[in-house]
């Protein structure tokens, strides 16, 4: 199988990077195989569970369905991107405090989607939280705690601002 390779250049968590990759790789494979980043995880492989969530140009995509070659020239951010002060950001702190995870496999996806939700809507209602995060699945069903974590993160962002 002689795969077509191509070279892509993009920004990854704020750093300029390049990679030579087979054209058929998805974004999760790119992050894992070339950069040792494992926070985006392939699970359902159909874009239904949210475990592979990655931000491309500031928008959440399913890394398992996103061709790696398409991030050429893009800004890519993953769960591994450190907060400005190097610690945890409000959303991460809120997930820790509210206990918004169990096995942790889906957690990066929930945190990235929660950041995007709060950027768009700093005061989401419980209904809005449920709808916005409905594309992320948690088989441990830590959902009630996740809702609390999102509400807590919103409050923490407000008190910081």
């Amino acid at each position: 199988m002689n795969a077509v390779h191509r070279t892509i250049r993009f920004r990854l968590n704020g750093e300029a990077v390049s990679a030579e990759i087979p054209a058929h790789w998805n974004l999760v494979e790119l992050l894992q195989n070339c950069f040792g980043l494992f926070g985006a995880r392939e699970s359902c492989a159909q874009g239904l569970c949210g475990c592979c969530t990655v931000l491309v140009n500031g928008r959440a995509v399913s890394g398992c369905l996103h061709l790696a070659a398409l991030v050429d020239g893009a800004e890519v951010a993953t769960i591994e991107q450190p907060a400005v002060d190097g610690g945890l950001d409000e959303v991460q702190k809120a997930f820790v405090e509210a206990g918004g995870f169990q096995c942790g496999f889906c957690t990066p996806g929930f945190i990235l989607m929660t950041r995007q939700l709060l950027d768009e809507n700093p005061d989401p209602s419980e209904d809005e939280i449920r709808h916005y995060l409905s594309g992320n699945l948690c088989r441990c069903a830590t959902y009630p705690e996740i809702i609390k974590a999102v509400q807590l993160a919103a409050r923490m962002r407000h008190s910081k601002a």
Partner: protein
Amino acid sequence: MAKATPPGTVGRSIPRLEASAKVTGRAEYVHNLRLPGMLYGKICRSTVAHGRIKRIDTSAAQALEGVHRIVTADDVRKVIPNPYYGPAFHDQPILAIDKVRYAGEPVAVVLATDPHVAEEAASLVAVEYEELPAVFDEVEAMTSKAVVHETLKPAGTFPDLKHLQGKKNTNVALDFHLRRGDVERSFKAADQVFEHTFRTQQVLHVPLEPFVSAADPGDSALTIYTASQSPSFVRIEIARLLGWPENKVRVKVPYLGGGFGAKLYIKLEALVVALALLARRPVKIALTMEEQFYTLTKHAATLRIKSGISKDGRVTARLCEIWWNGGAYADIGPRITQKSGFTAPGPYDIENVHIDSYALYTNLPPAGALRGFGIPQLVWAYESHTDLIARALTMDPVEFRRKNLLRNGRPQATGTVLKDAATDKVLERVAARMAWGKPFERGSGSVRRGRGIAIGIKASISPTTSVAIVNLYADGSCALYSSTVDMGQGSDTAMAQIVSEVLGIPIEAITVVHPDTDVTPYDMATLGSRSTYHMGNAVRRAAEDARDRLWAMAREVGLSAETTPIPDVFRKKYGMQAGNIVGTGSFIPSYAPTDHDTGQSENVTPFWMVGATGAEVEVDTETGQVRVTRMINVADVGTPINPHIVETQLSGAAIMQLGFTLSEKMTFSAGQCTNASLAAYKIPGLLDLPATIENEAVDSVETGGPFGAKGVGESGTFGVSPAIANAIEDAVGVRLMSLPLTAEAVYRALREKQGKPLEDD
């Protein structure tokens, strides 16, 4: 992050030890593992449910560039001559030998450095089958001419399975019987007798981290990296298969992305070992979500239950017949049949009990443990049955349960006297939270409201062993070595809290060393809500042993044992920051096996779990849609070590069971699973949650447990399904006897009730 917590952390809701690693995506899973020179394996699977393998043609696959090797059972036998494994029966081949017994069974593996190449090549392996008659239904399997296994092959280590050795022409892997009193005479004497048959469906664990294992053949010892709930079992079983001593097999387990009973015993481990030994290179196999559907399911079951009722509303006799659909390989099914089977009459005080419980082979994917070990199937039957009887007697369902409830001090069906099981508190707390005695708003028009309640009981699997080591360092920090697997249930944190409590050191001073069989001692497995009790006791003993040794060392060097800071004791003894104190602890509860003929035992379990659910539902009579508006989960978990984690376990278990109740069902056509993807198999998401979920751990103490605690991982599942079915009947007067309770099933039942039944598909 939280500041250093003061010692004495048992009973407090401290955040999980690994919280930061999980929210930054840095937690270690086997999925992250890459080894130098590693090959990826992709599996070619059977396309028929039952058939003889006539020919395996690997030429097209082998011709693909980048294929390292293709492996079939013939190759496996070069490194493992007798390649059959399993926890109760040695019936499952590493790759199919001569025959396939279910659609999806592994037949061959392609190895390549590029997983895409391996996947393409696996699709090019051509297998010819001579199809054989197949059996799929568990009741038909009792008498079917289609026989899944030519000969029964129980593992030789269990005395209670010896009588099954070499049995032929049967699909019954194990039959369990319990006899107490005289049910036939009691049925004749009863005022009324009720009989119902219930069914449950095949469902799937769906851990979001699919099965994944890797093996590194090494020079003198083999290392297995696996997402497993049972590292000690994996080591012993792989050593048995290879004929090696235990010290040549090392099993390492990091965090699991969910387990729920799927990742127990041997799954991919024997396969990656055989492949790594053949290729003399590290081999990793990571299943896709689809392949999980061909690996392990939860038992579908048919349950017949019959009760005799006296004039004053007492259950005087109960007969239970259960047929468990075990699929093509026994896995742990026979133990479910037995060790959950004996609780089939439920948490009721019944003088005369008759149980027949059968583990059956069929040509479906193998079934095993799933969060409850058969209990949710049993509770589904006995709590639906209980409600049906109460309605027929025009007795209040809570009052009927109250009247018949099994309470501490009274014998359970096995004869074991109930102890530290807060059945009454659990029932009363659900009823109180639901304001059961008060009027209830019943809805109007096409949306009708109803409520239901259900309570279940479970014994712990016994007897099982846990061993722990506490290694105290000279600065007063320490490491806990335990083979309990943290798959999300929070065991690392709970065990560290126990060490913290005993040694009086902050939680931050404790590292939990993850399972590594060269380093961490034996543990039976992380299953059946056993870890808090069994490993918790072992950890407590190990910490107490370390503390006793520390105090002895303090006295030896002339310091006050209980008040001298730990670093000072070490410094006085060794003249500098040096040395270790190693404490060990092991735990195995006492146990009396059940009698083969009567199922009687005076000590069948070290502890009992009790869980109940109350549900309020809205049913749309025009569409059959059921909306659970309120779900109340109450359990006896003893005294929680970490109340927040306990609540999350209760709630998570109940929501998972909500999926098994309302939407989840594996569908099959000629034994082929037809909905093997999350697009077609619907697990609960945020939009499926009840508007209100309440959870409560009742005030309780488990006297044999560490600091009064016992297991909680499964208790939230027990009551969910029947509570909702009972609420549906309360709302619209129809009774569903099979799971799941889909809108279609409700609508069909409504139409039938109206005398206008819908045609079948």
